[in-house]
């Protein structure tokens, strides 16, 4: 039941000014799977992730070389429109970052700017569906016009997930989405991810090896900007091919 390749990264090199953050990274990411990225702090996981929806464009000094193809289309081509790209590649951040607006507006924001809804009812439907998919609808349905920041951390993060899926993306990127959450909220998000992967391709950066082991099908290990190894999660955590990976997963990193 090997899935189709959704994202294909080839020879990705990323520089921040003088400093090279990624070296010749090549990686295939399968559709409807959860792929985890692990590695020590500063190894380039976030950088890699942010290349996938060109969030790195925001940083002046960041230079990206190589190709990243989503469904065969290089997203770094000249005539690619980032707005469109980001519509298709959603992102969820480390710290929950709902807009300081109402819960409804938070989720309606994306469909609005992209003109996805013809009218009010359609918009409402999109919002409701997204909230349901993000498994938070029941908790907030009675207070859609309270501000998003009034929710608890875990709820906020699920709201952000609802926001991300409101524009119906193919791929969802998550950068340590649970690191600011307590174990219970984390468990909820993990369960949610499992649900979401049926519809979306999910790529998650995590610091917790246990989390990677729990949620992902494939895992990639980064070290000093190199993608050392990418393989089935089971293999990575039981019998990794590379010694560095082994040292990392067994906590012997030096």
């Amino acid at each position, binding site marked *: 039941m090997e899935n189709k390749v959704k994202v294909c990264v080839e020879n990705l090199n990323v520089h921040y000014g003088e400093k090279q953050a990624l070296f010749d990274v090549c990686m295939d990411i399968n559709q409807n799977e959860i792929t985890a990225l692990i590695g020590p702090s500063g190894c380039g996981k976030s950088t890699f992730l942010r290349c996938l929806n060109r969030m790195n464009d925001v940083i002046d000094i960041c230079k990206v070389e190589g190709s990243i193809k989503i469904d065969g289309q290089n997203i770094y081509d000249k005539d690619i429109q980032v707005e469109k790209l980001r519509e298709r590649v959603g992102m969820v951040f480390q710290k929950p970052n709902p807009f300081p607006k109402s819960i409804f507006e938070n989720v309606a924001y994306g469909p609005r700017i*992209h003109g996805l809804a013809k009218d009010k009812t359609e918009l409402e439907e999109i919002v409701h569906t997204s909230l349901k998919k993000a498994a938070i609808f029941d908790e907030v349905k009675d207070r859609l016009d309270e501000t998003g920041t009034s929710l608890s951390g875990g709820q906020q993060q699920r709201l952000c997930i609802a926001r991300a899926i409101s524009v119906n993306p*193919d791929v969802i990127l998550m950068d340590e989405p649970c690191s600011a959450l307590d174990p219970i909220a984390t468990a909820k998000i993990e369960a949610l991810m499992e649900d979401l992967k049926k519809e979306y391709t999910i790529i998650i950066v995590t610091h917790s090896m246990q989390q990677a082991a729990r949620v992902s099908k494939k895992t990639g290990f980064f070290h000093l900007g190199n993608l050392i190894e990418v393989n089935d999660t089971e293999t990575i955590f039981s019998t990794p091919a590379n010694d560095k990976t082994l040292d990392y997963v067994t906590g012997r990193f030096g």
Partner: protein
Amino acid sequence: MNSNSLKISNENLKRRLNAERRFKFYGVIAISLALIFVLILFTNIISKGYSAFYRTLIEIKIEFNDKVQPEMFKQMSDTEINKLDLYSFSKKNIYSNFPDIEKKSDKKKIIKLFSIEFEEEIKTYINKNKNNLGNTINLYISASDDIDQIHKGNYSRDIPEERRRVSNFQLSIYDELVGQNKVKFEFNLPFFSRGDSREAELAGLGGSLIGSFFTMIIVLLLSFPFGLFGAIYLEEFSKRNRFTDFIEININNLAAVPSIVFGLLGLGILLNTFELPRSTALVGGITLSLMTLPTIIIATRASLRSVPPSIREGALAVGASKVQTVMHHVVPLALPGSITGTIIGIARALGETAPLLLIGMVAFIVDVPSSPLDPSTSLPVQAYLWNDSAERAYEEKTSAAIIILLSFLILFNLIAVFIRRKFETKW
């Protein structure tokens, strides 16, 4: 799944991208406007003022006669020479440089070509060269402010004569002198040493420079220690309660109170209640100190606050008392920030005019003050005063005073930036 390509842009997206471009363009315009303002302001002032830094001199020949002989100066001291009455001697000698001029009224006009202090200048020359004076000497003496302006090209000659301050006759003499190569420019050193004067060519910045200097010293001496210590108390020691909240709000408000209100304070309290001497750098300094104090307190508190609590905890945990912790660790780290704030505050005080007007530092003061208790003006006030004068030459002087003022401010700010850069700590 989204089948549409990442490239195909629909109407909606095109519209959005256009809006984006427009918005960005507004930003560029705004910034350009601001920058253009700066540019215009500086070019305007520099172009108006740079010529004040040199002055026009006219060469004349002086012949000594029986009554006034070179030898007699050799025995005399400087003061004795200065006390001599050489006015008519000088005047006659100037006339003799223009042998063709006969009419008395014309002669008067000739004299008007020169600075009113021509006698002094001749004396100064004699003083300087008293041991090797020949029978005739050639020296340059200052031109009058009008000729100065004309020679600098600041004053249009095309204005009809009746509205011009220089007559056609004078112009022709001037042209003749230029033709003889007898008119030259020189760096205007006296501009920096003289006090104010009703005669534009004699008015200098010296008095106001010293006045500003005294004022700033007082501001520094008063506002820095009080500001620093007060800030330390508020930030590090005061318990949070109504009273300290009140002080806090009070200080923040004080920083935004219009400067002229401080002038009223100076007038009402310092002059009227404490009867301190009017128009002095002392009162000006105290007034500006009070104005600067909140700035320094706020800057110091900000930099105290930016010292991470972990430093404090580290010191407390080895058994340092609170005072020790603050004095040994926190203050040294906050000092650069505090000093930067102080410099910037002082720079602001240096450029401040309004409060000084109210405490009488706006008087016409010829003497260069020798102590903070002497009546004096300050740089910006001097500029204000000159700006009020009608003579054309004062426009140039005003601009020049402003150039000096701005140079000081830029210098101060550069120092502040330097300190900030040098001691900047990222926690």
